[in-house]
């Protein structure tokens, strides 16, 4: 489904990713772990097409197409979804209005008929169960006044509505208390199936107790420095990242904190 080959990318002239290779097949869950500043979020944003990031080398093939040539909205309509680490507020635009617009864009793209507000309301009600959100969220402005946990649940609700082929979850566990983490992870597990793939970007192992990855990749200094199965995450939890950092001298990649 996704093939990343020797990907180099950065922001404002600073190279952050320095040759990433990664293959994701449908049905798989991959975890990308690593210390702060390792380039995890950069990788997520480059896959989604964030305009501030520049790809300097390498290629990304998604479903047989050159992903890097597509605009962000085109990628989304092709089934690439990114759950944001810091979901953005859109005042005055209701969650339902926003979701319907996004959903219908995708329907149009697939040459399917658009749903009117009433039809969509039913669909939304159904999908909202995945993250245990009630109807009051649908009439509120997108993410405005939402708590940290509500924002993250709202991201997964969007995933539930848009049914992506490839979902990249960027630090979806950050800032969640244990109950919210359980709900969010439960939602992701419900949405995962043999036809889609998920890339989890996370700093901590605890999310992986709930969403069990098939593969774990450790990113440090813009390189993947170690790969393994789910047990690698546990090893990292015990040993931290420092033992890997020493393997790579240039780990303090600048700019990965860009929001």
């Amino acid at each position, binding site marked *: 489904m996704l093939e990343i080959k020797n990907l180099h990318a950065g922001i*404002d002239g600073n190279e952050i990713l320095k040759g990433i290779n990664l293959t994701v097949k449908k049905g798989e869950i991959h975890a990308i772990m690593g210390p702060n500043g390792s380039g995890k979020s950069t990788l997520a944003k480059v896959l*989604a*097409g*964030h*305009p*501030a990031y520049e790809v300097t080398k390498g290629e990304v093939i998604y479903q047989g197409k050159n992903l890097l040539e597509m*605009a*962000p*909205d085109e*990628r*989304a*309509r092709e089934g690439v*979804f*990114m759950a*944001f680490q810091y*979901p*953005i507020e*859109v*005042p*005055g*635009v209701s969650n339902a209005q*926003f979701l319907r*617009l*996004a959903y219908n*864009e*995708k329907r149009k*793209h697939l040459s399917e008929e658009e749903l009117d507000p009433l039809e969509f309301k039913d669909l939304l009600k159904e999908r909202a169960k995945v993250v245990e959100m009630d109807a009051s969220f649908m009439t509120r*402005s997108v993410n405005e006044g939402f708590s940290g946990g509500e924002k993250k649940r709202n991201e997964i609700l*969007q995933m539930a509505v*848009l049914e992506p082929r490839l979902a990249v979850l960027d630090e979806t566990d950050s800032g969640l208390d244990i109950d919210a983490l359980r709900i969010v992870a439960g939602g992701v597990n419900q949405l995962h199936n043999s036809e889609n793939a998920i890339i989890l970007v996370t700093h901590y192992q605890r999310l992986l107790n709930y969403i069990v990855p098939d593969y774990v990749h450790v990113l440090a200094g813009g390189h993947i420095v170690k790969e393994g199965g789910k047990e690698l995450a546990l090893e990292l939890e015990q040993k931290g990242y420092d033992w890997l950092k020493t393997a790579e001298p240039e780990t303090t990649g600048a700019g990965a904190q860009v*929001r």
Partner: protein
Amino acid sequence: MSTVEILGKQEYKYGFVTDIESDVIPRGLSEDTIRLIVEKKNEPDWMLEFRLKAYRHWLTMTEPKNWPNISYPEIDYQDVIYYSAPKLKPTKASLDEVDPELLRTFEKLGIPLTEQKQLAGVAVDAVFDSVSVATTYKEKLKKHGVIFCSFTEAIRDYPDLIKKYLGSVVPTNDNFFAALNSAVFSDGSFCFIPKGVRCPMELSTYFRINNSESGQFERTLIVAEEGSYVSYLEGCTAPKFDKNQLHAAVVELVALDDAQIKYSTVQNWYAGDEEGVGGIYNFVTKRGKCAGRNSKISWTQVETGSAITWKYPSCILQGDNSIGEFYSVALTNHAQQADTGTKMIHLGKNTRSTIISKGIAAGKSNNSYRGLVKVMPKAENARNYTQCDSMLIGSNSGANTFPYIEVMNNTSSVEHEASTSKISEEQLFYLQQRGISQEDAVSLIINGFCKDVFLQLPMEFAVEAQRLLGMKLEGSVG
């Protein structure tokens, strides 16, 4: 590139010129000019007196150039044409007698005037340069006692009403542009809603400037008698010229006991090109007087056009328990400048006012909100709530807020909230990441920002306003 740049490449689709022979008077302004206008319009002596008085005041006044946050080259008032009317002036006994070229012009603007095509539910007075060329649904309205006609006809047919109310809200010496208007105004609309009547349809005036050299000086007067209600809409467009045209209008509203006037404007005058060449100078005085108890006046404006906008639709809350409202969206792009807002003058007891202002500045434009809330000593328990939000698009635009609050009564309460935000690349990216195109994303964000104001517009107008904002901001991330 990391900044959002709105290119606004969309063409101004109302920029065409109608080729029509006009009766134009020589440029320049003097007492003789005024006498000539009065003669052309066949006006009575009291109108001549009114105009001359205003003119003599005007000569003693200076243009307000210091306090508004706008700048423009000196206007040579002797170089303006003060009267331009399409020839073969229609007698207006019937719409069939209106010049077909004019009918075509308004049809092209989306305002069909002929009997078969008239807009359902909206009566329209169409003003072309200096004169009103047609008014629809007049007979139907008359059955309800509602008077809706051009100002010229009103002076001829309803002199008592005009004498009573003309200048009663905006005196001839009110300000420089109002004085100028009072001296030379050539036409406009008059609405009168008698006691207890709820006007059965929306009333509307469509203003079109066609002549490149002439100014447009129109006058609108709306009087709502006791317990009546009217909703009035105003639309404006002009051709694209590389010279600036002056538009100095005066609008007066009077609401008696328990009456309600809702006044909505979608202003789309030609704004000039990307470098700021051409466009309308929109210097307008709009004021409503809630003269009676429990009366209410609401101004809703969507200002998207004009090179310069200088206007402050205001309410004088004289009657006890009266209500004034001001809902505004002002959008500026490229080199446009806007200094707009409102004045709420609380005189009566328990008077209430609400101000919601949304300013959007794109390109290298400058957008200022200026508002006065004044609570006089006798206005016990007066309440005001003001919310002023500005949104910046790109990094070369400017937004300012100038609130003035004067309270002379300690039982009153005045609240003011203000915010400034920016359409960020992150916001656009977020929406795009959900499959929404960039243009739709900009329009979604802007419409969300303006929601509180759009909710106040009549539905057809709200749709038009949303479309217009989307169009004005069409652009891309550079």
